[in-house]
């Protein structure tokens, strides 16, 4: 069964010149489609400007798409005000938690917003249990917690309204690697327990290989390659996927042997005009998969 379906999503932004006049447009998201089966983990990999954050914002209802549709369990969520089905965990828990609210108060915000009527204190305690934090953390402030603990609170807050889908936007990139491993373990455990579906947005391909089942490589607003993560990484078809994989710093000879051998671009990144030309090339050459 499909939990999330994204259909031909498009979002363009106007480009303004120095005088505020519209001089063109950027297609930030350019016809993106994918589906995530219930309980699955879909990884969206891309660099800055690829459109991954715009896609997350549209799924969260923070940005309206120009065209296309977003369906959860077969029902379009565009235009719906109630969005308890989708929740988000942000990159930097230091910035996404209000420093003046206790952990309990932060978790209470979505509960109250969605009209939770039961025992609030008990629910907050249960949520803290779920993310393996002591129940008495409800009375602590974010500055009393470590980075990993803060991210656990952010996860508890996202789970407060029992969502079906979690959008994870680089959830561990601000954390140390040993802390990252434990947060990923927790997300996997919660996914199994609660039957959650994850959209995992990251630029860390090694992490993606270990966490996602299916991966979409996003480049200039388009998914240039998609497939089972093991297959895409073993046998990348698109030049950009090869470049990404070749760029990953790795720690073992086996991984190094797996990286495609391509001469890394020695000069500067392409200019806007060159990107346009590149994109024209991409439009002409559709991905193999």
């Amino acid at each position: 069964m499909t939990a999330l379906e994204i259909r031909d999503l498009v979002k363009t932004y106007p480009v303004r010149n120095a005088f505020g006049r519209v001089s063109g447009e950027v297609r930030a998201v350019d016809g993106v489609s994918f589906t995530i089966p219930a309980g699955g983990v879909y990884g969206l990999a891309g660099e800055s400007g690829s459109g991954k954050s715009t896609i997350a914002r549209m799924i969260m209802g923070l940005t309206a798409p120009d065209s296309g549709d977003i369906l959860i369990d077969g029902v379009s969520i565009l235009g719906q005000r109630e969005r308890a089905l989708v929740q988000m965990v942000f990159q930097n828990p230091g910035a996404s938690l209000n420093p003046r609210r206790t952990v309990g108060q932060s978790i209470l915000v979505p509960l109250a917003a969605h009209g939770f009527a039961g025992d609030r204190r008990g629910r907050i305690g249960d949520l803290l249990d779920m993310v393996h934090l002591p129940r008495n953390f409800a009375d602590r402030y974010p500055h009393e917690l470590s980075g990993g603990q803060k991210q656990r609170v952010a996860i508890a807050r996202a789970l407060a309204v029992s969502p079906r889908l979690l959008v994870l936007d680089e959830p561990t990139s601000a954390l140390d690697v040993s802390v990252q491993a434990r947060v990923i373990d927790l997300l996997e455990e919660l996914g199994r327990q609660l039957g959650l579906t994850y959209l995992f947005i990251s630029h860390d391909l090694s992490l993606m290989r270990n966490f996602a089942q299916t991966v979409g490589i996003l480049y200039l607003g388009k998914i240039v390659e998609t497939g089972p993560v093991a297959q895409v990484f073993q046998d990348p078809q698109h030049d950009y996927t090869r470049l990404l994989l070749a760029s990953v710093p790795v720690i073992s000879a086996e991984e190094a042997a797996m990286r495609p051998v391509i001469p890394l671009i020695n000069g500067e990144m392409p200019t806007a005009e060159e990107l346009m030309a590149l994109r024209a090339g991409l439009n002409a050459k559709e991905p193999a998969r």
Partner: protein
Amino acid sequence: MSALLSVQGLSVSFTTYGRTAEVLKGVSLEVPQGAQVALVGESGSGKSVTMKAIMGLLQQPPARIHGGKIMFDGRDLLTLPERERVALRGTAMSMVFQDPMSSLNPVWTIEDQLTTILKYADRRLGRDRDRRGRRARVIEVLAQVRMRDPERVAGSYPIMLSGGMRQRVLIAMALLSEPRLLIADEPGTALDVTTQAQILKLLRDLVEAQGLALLMITHNLGVVRETSNYVYVMNKGEIVEEGPTAGLFEAPRQQYTRDLIAAVPRLTGRVAP
């Protein structure tokens, strides 16, 4: 031959609000002439304090260096008069900072910023260069860091450059003073992975071509493997393990290093436990 940089038993404590914390507990490490050495550790391990102590950038107080030596080219930096210390900093040893935006002055052109450093370096090295000579050297060093159009970059303000270009400007800055030791603090971590790969390759090529010694400070084990031959692993203010990079990654001896390496996700997928 003795090492270019040799830190011996460095101990540093921090005192804030009347409480004292031992931050470095006898750290020893060596960077031989022309070697590529990495210092790796997680947040709070003490790697940045070590780096700051070497560069002489520790604020004292709250910090207090209460033991050890930092030998650079046969001289102990900790007992050197401040004047001589300042003369070494940014000349014999140069630093590439992590955050390219906050390390550049937003209202000066790249050429102005590089020229300032060049004048300083020339004075230290007793070189005489006129304006045209300085401009030529600035353009030359920008070309060395593989700017495609060095003239245009020289006339640009930081905001007009991409993150990768700014990082390369910082490397150019470090090179201007013709250092013998380059200390790099997490270069490229704020950048996209393809850009980071370019930056690391550039650093590697430059260090090799010019015979510089490199001390790479990072939390990323992948970056360690890509840029160094020898690695020191730090945890809680101590060096817990050291050795040639490849060997240490293949067969870590200490439990801490083993756990750290096991926590790194692999491009090849999960390792069987």
